[in-house]
């Protein structure tokens, strides 16, 4: 059953364009999407998904499963980095362990978006408030990561590197992509509440265009991910194994939490994907600023070079299979 899901996932345009990007690197095509076009796509996707999420959140209100789900999401983004840290410390120093752990505790918006497209192509319903969980899960893991550095390596750091909490909060909450996602969420909610015709006027931009831009961006992400592979090899087999096994482990925790929350299969898949995905936008830039001791190539090649393509291609349908196995047992 899983293999049919994998096939169904692989044959959607976003994943096919992702492959096209990957293959272009291996075939040494000179296809290139020059900077700052990828930035345009990623800004657009964050703005659009935030706006959409805000509208839905305003519609549904904060009742029902919203608050429990968001609370659980925050707890997961605090818990997962600690588990990851313990695992990573087996082989790596405090700085690298903390930085990678923070990345895996946080989320990947593009993986989330691809999971949504997968659900749509399977005609499985999901709720807009999951975008609130997405937005809210970006930051806590950064704070945990920095906390782990503070606790784990208090004496090894020169005085200058003592972090100030202001800086940490700044890096975690005001990172450009976090800020844009949260801001668009608030604007979506305000528009939904006070200016409903504004929704229809935004719709061609934020809704209709979304799928196409997603495909275009995934084409680029395929290129970027494939170009990270050589440095992944250098990172060694421990990190390679970590980058595949940790998401699976996190997805299993995630699916049981989703079951405990009583989430529908669609929402459950999104929750699992949030747990299983790793950040390559907000967290790496924050870590670069606050933990320069950690090797950027480690947390980039694992998250972007392996975990991301794994989730896009195989992870999402596998997690869907998992959800189908665990969740109906509860609801059925």
């Amino acid at each position, binding site marked *: 059953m899983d293999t049919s899901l994998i096939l169904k996932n692989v044959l959607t345009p976003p994943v096919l364009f992702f492959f096209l990007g990957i293959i272009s690197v291996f075939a040494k095509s000179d296809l290139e999407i*020059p*900077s*700052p076009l*990828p*930035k345009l*796509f*990623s800004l657009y996707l964050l703005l659009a998904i935030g706006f959409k999420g805000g509208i839905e959140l305003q519609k549904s209100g904060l009742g029902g499963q919203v608050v429990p789900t968001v609370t659980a999401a925050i707890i997961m983004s605090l818990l997962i980095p600690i588990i990851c840290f313990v695992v990573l410390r087996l082989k790596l120093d405090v700085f690298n362990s903390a930085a990678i752990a923070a990345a895996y505790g946080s989320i990947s918006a593009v993986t989330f978006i691809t999971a949504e497209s997968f659900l749509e192509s399977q005609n499985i319903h999901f709720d807009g408030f999951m975008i609130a969980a997405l937005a809210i899960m970006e930051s806590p893991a950064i704070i945990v990561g920095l906390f782990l550095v503070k606790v784990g390596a208090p004496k090894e750091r020169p005085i*200058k*590197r003592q972090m100030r909490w202001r800086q940490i909060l700044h890096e975690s909450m005001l990172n*450009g992509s976090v800020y844009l996602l949260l801001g668009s969420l608030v604007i979506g909610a305000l528009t939904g509440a006070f200016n409903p015709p504004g929704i229809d006027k935004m719709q061609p931009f934020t809704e209709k265009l979304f799928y196409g831009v997603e495909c275009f961006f995934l084409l*680029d992400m395929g*290129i*970027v991910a494939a*170009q990270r592979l050589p*440095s992944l090899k250098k990172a060694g087999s421990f990190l390679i194994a970590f980058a595949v096994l940790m998401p699976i482990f996190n997805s299993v925790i995630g699916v049981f939490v989703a079951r405990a929350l009583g989430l529908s299969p669609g929402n459950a898949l999104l929750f699992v994907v949030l747990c299983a995905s790793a950040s*390559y*936008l907000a967290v*790496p*830039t924050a870590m*670069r*600023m606050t933990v*320069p001791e950690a*090797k*950027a*190539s480690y947390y*980039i090649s694992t998250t972007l070079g392996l975990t991301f393509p794994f989730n896009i291609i195989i992870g999402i349908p596998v997690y869907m299979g998992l959800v189908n196995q665990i969740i109906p047992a509860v609801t059925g």
Partner: protein
Amino acid sequence: MKRLDLIFSERELDAMLKCLEKAEVPGYTVMKHVTGRGPERVVSEDMEFTGLGANAHVIVFCDEEVLERIKVQIQPLLNYYGGVAYISNAEKL
């Protein structure tokens, strides 16, 4: 006169410019979207959208005595975050 070439990650540009202002440079020129390789890291254009993938190249033309002040200001930043600084001779046209 001297010419100073500074190359470092774009993320530290604001901090670096503040240092230059403190050193009272007469002016500076900034080129962003620069990539490269240092002893440890490769900085590549395809990562630019993440905020990790670009250096800035800053050029300062100034008198020799200003260089000393600049050095004091920027050395900590270069040590902490990486980056290189080279000087050469220059004169006004």
